[in-house]
């Protein structure tokens, strides 16, 4: 059972890292500011979401798991607002 949980954690965290790497690759490779923002907002929060998913079964204290989810939600809200904000500024240049 715990082996299964460990495998799940490992897989989810590895997948999360892949998306972080993809987001960074997009940040470096994409031609314009808005495309780079696509990479940051979409790949990074998915990566973080997968890492949070992988950490959920390992959260020790009571409240550890909801706190992890709260972190993800806050990052989601801030990236959802920051993406359009920066895209708007980049377009005005």
């Amino acid at each position, binding site marked *: 059972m715990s082996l299964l949980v460990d495998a799940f954690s490992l897989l989810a965290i590895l997948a999360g890292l892949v998306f972080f790497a993809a987001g960074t690759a997009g940040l470096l490779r994409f031609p314009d500011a808005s495309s780079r923002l696509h990479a940051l907002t979409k790949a990074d929060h998915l990566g973080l979401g997968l890492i949070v998913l992988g950490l959920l079964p390992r959260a020790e204290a009571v409240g550890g798991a909801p706190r992890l989810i709260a972190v993800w939600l*806050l990052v989601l*809200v*801030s990236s959802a*607002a*920051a*993406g*359009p*904000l920066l895209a*708007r500024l980049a377009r005005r240049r």
Partner: protein
Amino acid sequence: MMADGLIAAAILGVALATIASRGTFTAVALFIAYGLLLSFAWVRLGAIDIALTEAAIGAGLSGALLLGAASRVAGRGAAMDRRPGRAMTVAIALGCAGVTAALAAAILLLPDPAPSLAPQVAANIGATGLGNPVAAVLMSFRGLDTLLESAVLVLAVIAAWSLAPDDAWGGKPGPMQPVLADGPLALLARLLPPLGILVAVHVLWIGKDAPGGKFQAAAILAAMWMLPWMAGRVVPPPISARWLRVAVAAGPALFIAIGLAGWMTQGAFLAYPPGLALPLIMVVEIALTASIAIALALLVIGPPGRRA
């Protein structure tokens, strides 16, 4: 060990890039990354309280302040010194290398076992009722430092305000903000402050037993106040408002009053009566949080500026 090496290399690379960068905007962006990487270093050094403060104040509030400054001095020939000549640059580099070598030698030649006050803190922490040793040092063992520091913030606000041009004195702090009824910033200004209040109170309250406390909480509250302010959703008070001035000074004033009371009753400035230490410390913590939050926000926004 590998994590330490990677973090160290990243910090050094970002610091070098900050110093060497051409544009001020790039330099500020790199500096924010520097602050965030430093907080990783603090986690590795077992100093979670410092990591939180560095991320909130060293990277967050400083970043907002410096980005604003960079956009306002961009394209203006602000007064500049002469660039040092080649020989002078080499001399400066040699001198700085000497400073680094001396500090590095001091680190490598530290006595073993290192001198430490940790046992004394552990022996006396029970008297404060606190579980977080850093909070105990800040509020009790070295309470005078914390008191002076909160006074520094009040003085910094006074000094910054006194830089306002004569015709702007008494006006609203900071440059004029355009009112944004809609848009992403307005959305954040609606959504985030209630959640930020929850997180700040949690960070303040948990600070008595775990990493956290007034500075981290005050930095979050300051950001939550500035956000609707920048989106034009709340009207900032003019710096002539009496309640604003009272609020900035109230926390340190209460700290001094309790310190004096300790002098009267216990015979030492800032001594807490036995059994009452924890409630008194928490009252001062809460009052200081409010004062520090307002002071931090006022410092980031800056003095009133000329109306364009």
